């Protein structure tokens, strides 16, 4: 409310100021038009008196100032004409100083001074010196800043710079620099003073207002950087020390931060590099509240970019020992600013690291050194919880990864894991994620168990629950993370099987600590990785048989068994079952019958004891059947036992259609195309007949419960099985039985009670089309089909 009033009042004052200004400007214009110098001076002074107000905020004052500025341009042109009409510029220079009020007087003086320099009747340096000196009369910060900004504005193209038309004697550049420096110094003093004047309760407001004015001060540095004559030598000897002196001595947080940043931004990189020591030595002297870490970070960022601009500049860095200086200075700054937030410290080190990676990519010792210093600072504290700091740490740790694209390098840095130790759980996890992503992105191959161990130690945030991290829900992030870990496990690879086994063992050791939440994600890739090794071994054995390798499939299978057992503690039986079956298949390929049998046993046990959900049972039984069908390693007995069990399970499924489908699937267990030993026609037929019976039962049940028969879909499916085995030459499947079946299906589908089922219609149609197709094809199969008539 109050501030609203203030804003309103300010608007009022501003418009009053503008009105006064315009009115006097009008009179001034008339005086200018009639070449009336006296009136022109009078009205311009009155016009400029509007700038004497103390009521406006910097923002509004600027608006007023800009209007006055425009008018002064016109006045300047008039002064110039006046001198060409014969009025002495020296007289004019005196005349404007008769004004009684200081602010208008000095604005006019600067305006005439500009003409004076252009006239070249006096050396530019003398006029400038006089102007900058006279401006001391304005001690009011806001008005002083704007006046001096005006001076800076009108003088910037008139400095006695080398090559400028106002160039003076030998020391000409010095004069130009001296002028700008002095103006800068005074402006900065005024700017800083602003903070300390006025009531304490408006301190924040003043800080904000000062922020709006900072560019007026910073502009001077920009002007300095534009002076042609400021070469490295002069920058080193005069400009930088003087500017820094002012920065350090002003003891103002805002000014120090802004000006340091300004220096870094406006002057060229090579200057910074050559004056690194001077620049850096100022940093520890800044106020402790100054965000010096950002300043230094920006500097290092600039230097990094400079280094990246081309390899030809790198020798400069080596020559000035940039790393040592920066490192040293950072140490000092951290020491000097005791209460620097840890985020700041980390930011500094992160920037230094970026710089080092850019300039000395080959010096891992430097990098380790930086990390070491960081660890020193971090250790002995509580784990980091400051979000800014953790963000910076992540940046710090990610930088080497991004640069080298190789986790190997990071694993060589002894201090890397130590920093990870200092992170809180969340960040640790985040960082671990970054590492994993990096590996995945770069497809880094990690091939020794030792490295894997180190790596998993590094990313333990992902591998196991850390203290206090006990939430149970599986959110998307967690799943994403674990999938990443799974991918990571997949890409671990060593050409040497022995080493690979060690790698697997190491991974296993780590992932088994992961708890129930993680195991379902981490175990499968490990199992597959192991099985991959098994298959590789098997191939090798074929080529180099007789080699007494310590790494045998058996050993791996033992390991695998133990690993899968870990899953049993978690209710994910279907997953374990799947894995067992995969293992069994692998064992089958290795001709290890007992092992395969054992795996099947485990799978059956799981099926019997753990898998109770009927839907899961259905998928599981199909898995079992599918796997078992492909097994060729079993002897008759074992196979019988297993197939018997499988058919048994099938018949005991809850839903009749499921039963039916499982049973007819079982028929395949007794007929393998490429195995003569497994061709039991009778049992194939038995299965199919049983399936038919069940399908009938389904229809009857449907009739009983709903009054209409169900779909004929099951019959058609069974028909297809019939056709399959018929085609394969199972003699028990007769043409008649097929024809009966087709008739049966037609009856079912034409029955009054049967609902129309488009899927069944289409299925039947395509089945019949297939029969027709086979007939048309001719040959042995075609002949067989020709027998089927309907």
């Amino acid at each position, binding site marked *: 409310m109050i501030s609203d009033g203030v804003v309103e009042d300010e608007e009022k004052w501003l418009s009053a100021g503008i009105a006064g200004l315009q009115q006097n400007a009008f009179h001034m214009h008339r005086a200018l038009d009639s070449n009336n110098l006296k009136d022109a001076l009078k009205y311009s002074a009155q016009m400029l008196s509007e700038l004497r107000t103390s009521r406006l905020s910097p923002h509004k004052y600027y608006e007023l100032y800009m209007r006055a500025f425009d008018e002064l341009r016109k006045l300047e042109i008039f002064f110039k004409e006046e001198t060409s009409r014969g009025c002495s510029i020296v007289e004019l220079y005196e005349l404007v100083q*008769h004004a009684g009020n200081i*602010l208008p007087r000095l604005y006019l003086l600067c305006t005439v001074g500009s003409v004076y320099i252009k006239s070249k009747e006096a050396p530019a340096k003398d006029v400038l010196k006089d102007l900058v000196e006279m401006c001391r009369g304005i*001690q009011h910060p806001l008005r002083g800043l704007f006046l001096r900004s005006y001076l800076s504005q009108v003088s910037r193209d008139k400095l006695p710079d080398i090559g400028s038309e106002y160039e003076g004697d030998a020391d000409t550049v010095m004069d130009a620099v001296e002028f700008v420096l002095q103006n800068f110094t005074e402006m900065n003093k005024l700017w800083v*003073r602003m903070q300390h004047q006025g009531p304490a309760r408006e301190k924040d407001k003043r800080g904000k207002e000062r922020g709006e004015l900072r560019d007026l001060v910073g502009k001077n540095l920009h002007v300095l950087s534009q002076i042609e004559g400021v070469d490295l030598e002069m920058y080193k000897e005069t400009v930088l020390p003087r500017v820094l002196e002012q920065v350090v001595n002003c003891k103002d947080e805002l000014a120090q931060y802004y000006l340091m940043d300004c220096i870094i931004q406006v002057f060229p990189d090579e200057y910074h590099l050559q004056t690194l020591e001077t620049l850096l030595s100022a940093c520890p002297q800044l106020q402790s509240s100054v965000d010096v870490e950002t300043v230094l970070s920006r500097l290092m960022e600039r230097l990094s970019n400079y280094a990246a601009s081309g390899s030809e500049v790198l020798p400069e860095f080596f020559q000035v020992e940039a790393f040592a200086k920066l490192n040293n200075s950072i140490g000092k700054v951290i020491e000097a600013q005791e209460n620097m937030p840890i985020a700041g410290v980390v930011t500094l080190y992160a920037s230094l690291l970026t710089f080092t990676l850019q300039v000395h990519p080959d010096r891992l010792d430097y990098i380790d050194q930086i990390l070491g210093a960081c660890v020193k600072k971090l250790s002995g504290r509580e784990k980091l919880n400051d979000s800014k700091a953790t963000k910076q740490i992540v940046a710090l740790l990610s930088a080497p990864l991004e640069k080298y694209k190789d986790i190997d390098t990071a694993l060589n840095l002894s201090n890397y894991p130590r920093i990870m130790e200092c992170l809180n759980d969340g960040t640790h996890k985040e960082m671990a994620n970054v590492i994993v992503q990096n590996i995945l992105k770069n497809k880094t191959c990690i091939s020794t168990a030792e490295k894997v161990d180190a790596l998993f130690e590094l990313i333990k945030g992902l591998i196991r629950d850390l203290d206090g991290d006990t939430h149970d829900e599986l959110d998307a992030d967690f799943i994403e993370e674990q999938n990443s870990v799974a991918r990571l496990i997949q890409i671990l690879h060593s050409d040497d099987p022995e080493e690979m086994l060690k790698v697997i063992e190491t991974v296993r050791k780590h992932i088994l600590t992961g708890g129930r939440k993680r195991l379902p994600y981490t175990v499968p890739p490990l199992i597959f990785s192991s099985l991959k090794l098994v298959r590789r071994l098997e191939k090798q054995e074929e080529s180099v048989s007789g080699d007494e390798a310590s790494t045998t499939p058996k050993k791996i299978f033992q390991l695998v068994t133990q690993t899968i057992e870990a899953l049993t503690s978690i209710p994910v039986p279907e997953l374990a079952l799947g894995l067992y079956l995969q293992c069994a298949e692998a064992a089958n390929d290795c001709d290890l019958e007992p092992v395969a049998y054992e795996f099947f046993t485990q799978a059956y046990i799981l099926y019997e004891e753990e898998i109770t959900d009927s839907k899961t049972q259905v998928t599981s039984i199909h898995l079992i059947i599918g796997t078992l069908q492909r097994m060729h390693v079993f002897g008759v007995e074992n196979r019988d036992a297993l197939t018997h069990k499988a058919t048994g399970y099938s018949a005991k499924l809850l839903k009749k259609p499921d039963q039916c489908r499982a049973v007819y699937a079982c028929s395949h267990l007794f007929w393998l195309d490429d195995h003569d030993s497994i061709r039991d026609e009778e049992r194939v037929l038995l299965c199919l007949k049983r399936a038919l019976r069940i399908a009938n039962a389904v229809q009857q049940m449907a009739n009983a419960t709903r009054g209409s028969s169900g779909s004929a879909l099951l019959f058609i499916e069974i028909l297809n099985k019939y056709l399959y085995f018929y085609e394969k030459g199972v003699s028990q499947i007769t043409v008649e039985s097929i024809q009966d079946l087709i008739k049966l299906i037609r009856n079912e589908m034409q029955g009054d009670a049967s609902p129309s089922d488009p899927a069944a219609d289409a299925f039947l149609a395509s089945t019949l089309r297939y029969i027709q197709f086979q007939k048309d094809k001719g040959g042995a199969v075609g002949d067989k089909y020709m027998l089927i008539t309907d």
Partner: protein
Amino acid sequence: MNFIVGAFKPACHISVTFSDGKNRKQIPIKKDNGQATTVPLFHSQDNITGTITVEPVSGKKVEHNGIKVELLGQIEMYFDKGNFYDFTSLVRELDVPGEIYERKTFQFEFSTVEMPYETYNGVNVRLSYVENVLGYRYVLKVTISRGYGGSITHFQDFVVWNYTPPPSINNSIKMEVGIEDCLHIEFEYNKSKYAILTQLYFTSPFETKLNCTSCCLLGQRLIAMLILNWNADLSRYHLKDVIIGKIYFLLVRIKIKNMDLEIRRRESTGSGSNTHVETETLAKFELMDGAPVRGESIPIRLFLSPYELTPTCRNINNKFSVKYYLNLVLVDEEDRRYFKQQEITIYRIGETQ
């Protein structure tokens, strides 16, 4: 002096022409009736020569007991208006008693006239401070004495300026201590001959005037301490001079809003218990805007030429003095004024100097 007597029309017309009048510089003045006119400029030791023309109104004759011209230096005290005190009086007889029928011219000459004082016109003349203002002029008075009907007189004003060398400096410069000042210390600064630094202790204008010792004992508040570093000899400036200097703030304990430099003129007339003092501010020149901090130095550059100054006059014929003062005023945020006053001597130098 009533030179137009009663309802009589003047019987003749008198005019004065200076022989080198065309070459003389003309100085604008204001006459008694407020009209502006220009009169010729003379200096001390000048020869004042010319012709006086008496022209009777057509057809009339002027009978007289003699015609004379007087050169008068007069002081007019305004509390005693109309009474002139003549400090210089020279007379030349122009004609013996007789009659004038037609236009007649007379030559006159005052050679190497001593005119030690400059013409001075108190600025307040046109204001109502009648009892306290003064004027001070040189005039040529032409008198035609007549037996009856009173004498016919004619006044011709002219201006006297005296160029003087810079007055000698009194090394033990007495600072004119403002009434509120309680202490000042003077000392010579460095080897520089003219730079004199003065520490000033300003006191609040509301506090009782105390002598310096007691001030310090009473713990008078020291509100600001500054060094004035004037140009040249601190106390003397010519009329077209520039006051150049610097003010160093050694200590600031008040919130200063601005600082002005004023030029004040003090006219004092009479003597003893009859002394009348009139002070006016001729110039108010803002030196600084805003509050300085310790260590700031503020430049001073004040051109004297735009102001209507006259040379300093000290005790002219025990009748009056005109003195000039520089007054440094600090105004704080509550509009309290703190000031420091110091006399300066103003003198006139020749145009070519």
